[in-house]
């Protein structure tokens, strides 16, 4: 079977000094460098380079990007078609979707073609041209698959659709016909007969008659011959699928007509004009004559369809392959060997869908095409699922391949997400793996990625991305940002760390940063004890600032009694209590004062830090004395206040 041999691509500037190539996978590219794996050996004389090898993001990319995004919309729409709708209705939907895909391909082709024509550079024109020819091939194959598999035309309609297919892909006839008809003397034009014959070969009898009529008006003496030909062309039966005539009736009519054409040949009716004689031979489907028109037909599949038109217009789908194979052999001859495209088309005529897909995958090396086409065919229930070794099917394999490729693109990766979503077996795990690698260049991009993960409950990826962002913010000393990312990551340990940094900052600067964030922590505060303390401590400061002293006092006390505050900070808290104790008004109640006192004593009864300097120890004991005094004074005033009966 078809094997595509791979020829090595050469990297300029490598392999001169050292013969080994080292490499490393990158996102969408490969780094390659000269090296020597045999670790002993001559030292490198030259200055080594690294080479980054990638697909050329080239001139066609902006246009192809449109193809990717528009086909993405069609794909997503297709997935939404409900399973429970009866299949009869669905067929027309599928055909319509197939046509949508094809029109997107054609639009893309046209734009590329315009660019090819308008560009000044010869090499750019070639690049555009190459891409156009690839898309042409793709659309040709897709169209045939639509006719044979999706629309699944029965005998009668089948040939008509194949004719349409051929006509669509041989548009030069129209251009030539226009040229001839618009010339001063069409009948004398050198391409005149080519046009007539081409039209006949495509079954466009009315148009052929129109062009022929130009000739007839000139030659009065042979007008009867032309009239005869005109008659044959006019009476050629064309099957009408929507009409009342059955296929059998059509067949009878066609056979009569065919016999009439044959009679003309036997009678030498057209002997006087070799062109008309040729046309008549075509009408009876004479193979040798058809083959003589090789240049006008230009492809074996045109030959096939023309041959069928004039010998078996009621061809049934299962019989198609026999004619296809023989047509190809006849047309190509013994010397020429079929190209990959020919093999693919032949497999389609043989209704071997899997072979078509396989050959397209190999020959075209183009995941976009096989992925979308296979997906559509799968929705039409045309593929039996091949069980792969890990239980997925062909459609999913191809869609995963395509989407994985999209993922390395800096903006198209978002399209890939939808494709993964519609791969039930492995889509999720592929997405999990690849979405983590999307570079988090900006906060906005990170949030975009996060939303995708959160929507899909990919909690590990959410956590990881938030952690990465938190760590990055912390490195750059943006504590507020680090904290919000940490909360989103639900990372308790990191939250503790950042809270401690906040508190450190506070003790260095005397004020809090990121007040907005701290004031609005809400339930997130509960993530870690340190964070809870930070939030509450800030709340204390806020209450104090708003002069809501008794609330502030209560909060401050609870921070110690509820053990929210770490012991190391109790002295700071007690010191914070001093201004409250020194207010004219009594703020702390008797009970509260007793509690504060016991906190102070608890603090002093604990193990003393041995690493305090004498000076520090002095400061500590002075503070303690001050507190004791303030507390005692407050106690006195509180007792008096509470003992006084208001009269």
């Amino acid at each position, binding site marked *: 079977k078809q094997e595509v041999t*791979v*020829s*090595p*691509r*050469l*990297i*300029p*500037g*490598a*392999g001169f000094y050292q*013969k*080994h190539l*080292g*490499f*490393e*996978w990158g*996102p*969408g*590219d*490969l*780094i*390659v*460098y000269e*090296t020597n794996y045999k*670790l002993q050996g001559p*030292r*490198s004389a030259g*200055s080594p*380079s*690294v080479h*980054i*090898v990638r*697909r*050329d993001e080239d001139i*066609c*990319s902006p246009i*192809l990007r449109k193809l990717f995004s528009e086909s993405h919309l069609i794909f997503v729409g297709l997935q939404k078609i409900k399973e429970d709708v009866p299949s009869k209705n669905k067929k027309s939907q599928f055909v319509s979707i197939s046509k949508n895909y094809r029109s997107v391909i054609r639009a893309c082709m046209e734009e590329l073609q315009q660019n090819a024509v308008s560009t000044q550079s010869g090499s750019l024109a*070639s690049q555009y*041209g*190459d*891409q156009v*020819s*690839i898309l042409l091939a793709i659309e040709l194959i897709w169209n045939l698959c639509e006719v044979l598999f999706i629309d699944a035309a029965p005998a009668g309609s089948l040939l008509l659709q194949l004719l349409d297919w051929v006509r669509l892909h041989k548009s030069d006839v129209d251009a030539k016909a226009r040229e001839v008809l618009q010339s001063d003397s069409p009948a004398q034009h050198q391409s005149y007969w080519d046009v007539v014959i081409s039209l006949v070969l495509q079954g466009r009898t009315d148009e052929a008659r129109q062009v022929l009529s130009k000739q007839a008006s000139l030659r009065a003496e042979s007008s009867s011959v032309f009239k005869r030909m005109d008659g044959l062309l006019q009476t050629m039966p064309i099957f009408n699928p929507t009409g009342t005539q059955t296929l059998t009736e059509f067949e009878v009519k066609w056979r009569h007509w065919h016999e009439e054409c044959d009679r003309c040949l036997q009678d030498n009716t057209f002997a006087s004009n070799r062109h008309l004689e040729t046309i008549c031979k075509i009408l009876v489907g004479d193979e040798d004559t058809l083959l003589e028109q090789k240049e006008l037909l230009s492809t074996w599949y045109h030959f096939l369809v023309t041959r069928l038109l004039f010998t078996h217009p009621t061809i049934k789908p299962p019989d198609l392959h026999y004619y296809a194979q023989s047509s190809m052999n006849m047309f190509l001859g013994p010397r020429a060997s079929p*190209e*990959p495209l*020919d093999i693919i088309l032949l497999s389609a005529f043989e209704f071997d869908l899997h072979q078509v897909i396989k050959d397209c995958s190999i020959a075209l090396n*183009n995941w976009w095409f096989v992925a979308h086409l296979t997906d559509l065919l799968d929705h039409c229930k045309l593929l039996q699922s091949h069980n792969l070794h890990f239980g997925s099917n062909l459609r999913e394999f191809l869609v995963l*391949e395509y989407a*994985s490729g999209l*993922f390395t693109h800096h903006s198209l990766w978002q399209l890939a997400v939808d494709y993964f979503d519609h791969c039930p077996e492995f889509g999720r795990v*592929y997405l999990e*793996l*690849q979405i983590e*690698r999307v570079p988090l260049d900006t906060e906005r991009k990170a949030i975009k990625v996060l939303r995708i993960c959160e929507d899909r409950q990919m909690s*590990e990826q959410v956590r*990881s991305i938030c*952690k990465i962002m938190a*760590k990055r913010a912390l490195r*750059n000393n943006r504590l507020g940002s680090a904290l919000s990312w940490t909360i989103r990551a639900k990372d308790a340990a990191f939250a503790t*760390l950042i809270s401690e940094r906040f508190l450190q900052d506070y003790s260095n600067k005397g004020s809090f940063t990121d007040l907005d964030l701290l004031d609005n922590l809400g339930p997130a505060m509960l993530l870690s004890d340190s964070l809870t303390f930070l939030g509450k401590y800030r709340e204390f400061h806020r209450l104090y600032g708003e002069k809501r002293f008794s609330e502030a006092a209560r909060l401050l006390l609870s921070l110690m009694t509820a053990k929210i505050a770490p012991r190391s900070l109790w002295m700071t808290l007690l010191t914070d209590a001093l201004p409250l104790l020194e207010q004219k008004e009594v703020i702390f109640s008797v009970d509260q004062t007793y509690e504060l006192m016991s906190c102070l004593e608890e603090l002093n009864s604990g193990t003393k830090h041995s690493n305090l300097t004498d000076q520090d120890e002095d400061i500590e004991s002075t503070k303690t004395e001050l507190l004791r005094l303030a507390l005692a004074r407050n106690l006195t005033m509180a007792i008096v206040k509470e003992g006084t009966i208001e009269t």
Partner: protein
Amino acid sequence: MFVAKSIAADHKDLIHDVSYDFHGRRMATCSSDQSVKVWDKGDDGEWHCTASWKTHSGSVWRVTWAHPEFGQVLASCSFDRTAAVWEEIVGESNDKQRGQSHWIKRTTLVDSRTSVTDVKFAPKHMGLMLTTCSADGVVRIYEAPDVMNLSQWSLQHEISCKLSCSCISWNPSSSRAHPPMIAVGSDDSNITYSGKVQIYEYNENTRKYAKAETLMTVTDPVHDITFAPNLGRSFHVLAIATKDVRIFKLIPMRRESANSSGPTKFEVQVMAQFDSHNSQVWRVSWNITSTLLASSGDDGCVRLWKANYMDNWKCTGILRGDGSPVNGSGHAAALSAVGVPVAAQMVVGAASAGRLKHSMLQYFY
């Protein structure tokens, strides 16, 4: 079409390893000139060297990035018998303007008695763990218990492989169905111990690593080894660079009794074997989705291998140096195929729908 852009790496001697960071925006190179260089990809898509410093007193064999969850951390290993951990310090503002960053050494691991041949971080779900292997046949697993303090590392495990080790690979799977697993390759030419790939598995009960499998069919020196990303499969895939490229499938077998201790038993199958390099294969590496394997051999080629949906593997690409001295332009140069000059290639594929060639719709991944 493929294009290659060359960047002058400016190392004074052979480059032995290049490593992309997790997001592909930074790159580290290491060399026999004893230094490591870090490169950053700018918004313009160009690579700039943002740090270059001497890391060891011998050739630096490998360099690797930790997961970005742990910050900007690198590890390197060297002929000088040590491995080192480096952390990037956010510099002064004028450094940032000059596009320079600073890396400081957090720790040096000196336990090896011989050249340290490979260094790898374990999968992130295991915490911040670093693994080295040496020519003295020992695999060492270190852990930093406090991820905020990278100067404290403790040697948690020493695995004696009895053969000189050349490469290690962790199974990246974080699935709870698989305990941590590490594969070790040996380039020892010793014929007494003939299996040159050993697989060790962590045992929750004994808290130790025990040997689960030796690939006895790999008898030639092994130069590189790599597990494929797991992707929800129940089995493991391991690629090996030896006298050819070999891909193994390791299928965990069900335990006989629920509480049987000891490592998992595996059924080992060869998924593919390629001898196209026709010589020693030195490196193998999977791409991120494990859809492509790349290998590099004595024939000076890098080959790309791909399995189709029927699991048939074939070569889908070959890269080779053109043997010319350094391309100084720094511009992206189109790669010609062997024997066909670039300009001619563009003409060759043109014209009718009948000819097909590699489509630009295919992204290289």
